[in-house]
């Protein structure tokens, strides 16, 4: 008998509807199944270097270290600094002194001073 012809006549959706997946899973001995799997073998098969190359780790780290709140904070600070600059430029114009950027830093805040 042709098995394919029999399978063609079976309504698989109807069969699956009658299967209780939870009951099937209850019958499976997961511990025994996991004992048969050699995870080391699976890991050995993975080309880690290729995986790293395909992953933008920089973006992942950046995304992990700073979320939406961080973005909002950066925007708010940038906007406020922009306002600082705007005010300082206008003060410079009124005083007839060219504005060349925010002054500083204090001595102990200079790079290499260890503070």
């Amino acid at each position, binding site marked *: 008998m042709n098995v394919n012809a029999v399978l063609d006549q079976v309504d698989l959706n109807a069969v699956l509807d009658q299967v209780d997946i939870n009951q099937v899973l209850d019958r499976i001995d997961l511990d025994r199944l996991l004992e048969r799997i050699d995870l080391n073998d699976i890991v050995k098969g993975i080309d880690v270097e290729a995986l790293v190359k395909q992953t933008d780790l920089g973006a992942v780290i950046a995304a992990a270290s700073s979320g939406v709140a961080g973005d909002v904070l950066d925007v708010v600070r940038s906007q406020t600094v922009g306002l600082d600059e705007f005010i300082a430029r206008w003060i410079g114009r009124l005083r007839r002194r*060219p504005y060349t950027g925010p002054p500083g830093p204090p001595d102990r805040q200079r790079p290499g001073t260890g503070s």
Partner: protein
Amino acid sequence: MTVRAGDAPPSGPPVVARESLQGKYAGFASRFTAFAVDVGVSLGVFMLALAAISFAALVLTGKDIAWHSGDTWVIIAYAVWAFIYFAHSWAASGRTVGMALFGVRVVTDGGADVSGRRAVVRTLALPLSFLFLGLGFVGILLGNRRRALHDVIAGTAVIYAWDARAAKLRFLSRK
């Protein structure tokens, strides 16, 4: 080439995008908005405390306490609370909630961390900057080190405490 006062600034991205501002003296807008946030936070916490006291009194004694903003002792209590809020924040980390939000920090005029004594002096001197229509704040706009009167009295300065360049890189990395 000479640069005349009033000339447009050199073309290119704004300063915040070009360089890290970390350690440079903070400007008026950052400091003012941080202070406004601090006033809001300190007032909010104070009012919550008053509400909690009212609630506790109502539960324990059955009497309702009515608070009026004009009451002398309410004003004194707020002044004490505000003193603790600012002095403790500056002594502990050099920044208040508002300053942390806007990325600015108080340091000594040499750039070191602020001591407890200096934080107390700065807090006590802060009201002086408001006298004569806020004349004490003019130094932030005109001074070379952007220091207000209370900064000069306490020997402190306010600097940007966030890395604008790193923030821009973070932003670009997610684009």
